[in-house]
């Protein structure tokens, strides 16, 4: 029987090729449906956040469709998103951007997850003049290239942990000491996002003339940072800052706990996305977490109501508290909805101009783009995990609780 199977295996790809050709070149708007396109990381190192991003997009699409869809030029349209898996690699991301635009005819793009993937896709969308609204590419290097078709609803990465450095300086001043005596330790993943955070933190450290005693680059797919933590034990810095997406956050919190490393201030990104509280319980306490959005904030919009309502709806739908990666993804879709309605047309240039003129409030925060396409109307928030709860400690306008500083030693907990 195998004899007949063999030719079949050869014919299969040929038949499949014919099939794929037949399915090509859909329009950007199919009947009464507006089709958005996105390449997300469903596999590979960013898959956790890829899922958050997709859930964010899907919740927005569902809600907008339930509430009557998008009105463009007097007609109501439903939303739909076409997804591909970029496998967390930029080569695939760029290829898929091309595929979404050329093969699937997508005219309205949603961003991928991570700065690296966004860096790979933005030049392609720019070349074809296809607007892309993204909520997960925060690197500053995306916004100094003169891109005209890239719009980001988030705060750029240099702002992520700046507040932590300022807080440390304030605390030291309040204690009657000089912030210039503070020792700073950095452990940053070697990828565009974290390296950009590093640049931001270094700038802030310089303004307070702090000493940088450790400046480690961590490998991607971070599973072990014992080397850095050993240095931390020896050099006793006052602040330890770690960034490395969800894996980095989980590794840092886990190993700090296991190896009982004491440091007065410990600030990281991606606490919520990595679910450090759920994974490590009290071990995650006193960690400072940079967040684009907190469910306790008071922004609101007509689709989701206020931030806590969004959090409730999301949790009901997907079974977990939304990390900000999901919230900013939802907000990206809302920006598209607003721009489509204001433009009243599917003309690409009109849509681009409408996007550029965006000035709205969503449950996620205010959104207004500067000429480089980044959102300048929303601050970053710093939260501290206290008793298993995320409490906003900075900036002052949003602070609900006081910072606990320094972190209690492990032996005293």
């Amino acid at each position, binding site marked *: 029987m*195998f004899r007949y*199977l*063999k030719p079949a*295996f*050869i014919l*299969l*790809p040929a038949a*499949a*090729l014919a*099939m*794929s*050709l037949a399915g*090509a*070149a859909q329009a950007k708007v199919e009947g009464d449906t507006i089709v958005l396109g996105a390449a997300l990381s*469903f*596999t590979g190192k960013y898959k956790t956040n890829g899922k958050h991003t997709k859930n964010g997009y899907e919740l927005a699409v569902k809600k907008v469709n339930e509430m009557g869809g998008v009105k463009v030029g007097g007609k109501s349209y439903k939303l739909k998103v076409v*997804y*591909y*898996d970029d*496998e*967390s*690699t*930029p*080569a695939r991301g*760029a*290829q898929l951007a*091309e*595929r979404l635009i*050329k*093969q699937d*005819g997508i005219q309205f793009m949603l961003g991928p997850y991570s700065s*690296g993937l966004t*860096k*790979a896709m*933005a*030049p*392609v969308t*720019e*070349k074809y003049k296809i607007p892309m609204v993204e909520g997960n590419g925060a*690197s500053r*290097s995306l916004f*100094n*290239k*003169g*891109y*005209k078709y890239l719009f980001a609803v988030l705060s750029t990465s240099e702002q992520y942990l700046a507040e932590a450095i300022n807080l440390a300086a304030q605390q030291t001043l309040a204690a009657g000491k000089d912030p210039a005596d503070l020792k700073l330790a950095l452990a940053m*993943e*070697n*990828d*565009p996002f*974290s*390296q*950009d955070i590093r640049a931001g933190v270094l700038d802030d450290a310089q303004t307070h003339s702090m000493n940088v005693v450790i400046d480690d*680059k961590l*490998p*991607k797919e971070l599973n072990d940072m014992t080397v850095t933590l050993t240095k931390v034990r020896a050099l006793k810095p006052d602040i330890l800052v770690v960034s490395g997406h969800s894996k980095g956050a989980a590794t840092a919190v886990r190993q700090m706990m296991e190896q009982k490393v004491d440091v007065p201030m410990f600030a990281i990104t991606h606490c919520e996305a990595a679910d450090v509280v759920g994974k490590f319980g009290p071990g995650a306490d006193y960690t400072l977490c940079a967040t684009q959005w907190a469910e306790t904030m008071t922004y609101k919009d007509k689709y989701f109501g206020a931030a806590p309502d969004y959090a409730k709806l999301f949790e009901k739908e997907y079974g977990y508290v939304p990390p900000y990666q999901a919230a900013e993804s939802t907000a990206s879709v809302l920006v598209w909805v607003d721009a489509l309605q204001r433009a009243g047309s599917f003309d690409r240039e009109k849509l681009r101009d409408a996007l550029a003129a965006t000035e709205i409030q969503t449950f996620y925060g205010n959104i207004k783009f500067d000429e480089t396409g980044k959102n300048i109307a929303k601050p970053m928030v710093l939260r501290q995990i206290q008793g298993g709860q995320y409490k906003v400690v900075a900036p002052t306008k949003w602070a609900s609780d006081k910072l606990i500083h320094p972190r209690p030693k492990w032996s005293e907990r």
Partner: protein
Amino acid sequence: MNGSGKMVIYVVAAIAALLIPQVPMLQPYLIQFAFLWVMILFAMTWDVMGGQMGYNSFGNIVFFGVGMYATAVVQRDLYFTVEEYANVAGGEQAALTPVEYLTGLSLGMGTGAVLAVVVAAVLGSGILGLRGHYFAICTLGLGIAAGELASGWDYIGAGSGLVTPLLPDALGERGPFFFYLFLVLAVITFAVLKRLYAGQFGLAINAIRDDEDKADALGLHATRYKTVAWCVSGFFLALTGGAFGNLVIFIDPTDVAFAGPTFGVWMVLMAILGGKGTLWGPVIGATVFHITQELFWTYLFGWQRVALGLLIVVVVVFFPLGIVGWLRERWPQRFGEVVDEEARRVQVSLEGER
């Protein structure tokens, strides 16, 4: 088939390939085709070592990355300072004129190719004394080391990556440009390899594959041939890498340039799938691989890796010699092998009795 008959086939195939961009239905797929040519280049260049010479190299991706970075750096440093470029690259302000772009690209690809040949010669003289698994593992290490080095070198962007200049609008759309660029590269590579395999070089590396000790004993400078073979492979792979950086636009040290777990493994798979050690095997293997991969990614969303794994198992079980190897075994006459019908029948009947 006689020589002129083959010539006709080549000419028809060349014309067909050149006409693809003119077919409206195929136009959205031009970049897809460009990726296909890249895959074919991967498989062909790998097969020089892995197939024709029997040296399984997992480190060829080094030449790809070297070519890519060299090209991008030349393109950058010809017209910008590092500082300037970091702040504008990719956007409108960094727009190059067509002449500048093409000069940068060709000079860069040339530099990359020369650099790759040097790297291959230096590395080759060092490690081509190793054989079999030892060589394979050593080359695996090379690919990983290169990625780590690139991740730590700020001049080439380190972990943050490097953005290549955008194709100027005057040179047309990305689709046709990269389609033709990679097509020409693939055709030249194919022709050169065909010529090389037909001559003394081909015989020499085949001899090394079949029995290196005997070849050596017969006076063949095995290490010299092996090093040259690696240089040939590296040369074309570096050219591919240089152009590929411009196709993808964003160079990440470990995920695009020195992408061992993806491209580095695929090039081996594709050559084996098509039939290693044959002229057309890598071409056919790469085509089948690329098409199935693209389809799995679309129609078996979420299961694509599983499906790809199954495909590999199927290939290994049903086509241990690869597609071309299998065809050759089945219809040896078509491949110009002389078959002694009498002897074959005896063999078959013997097998039947056993």
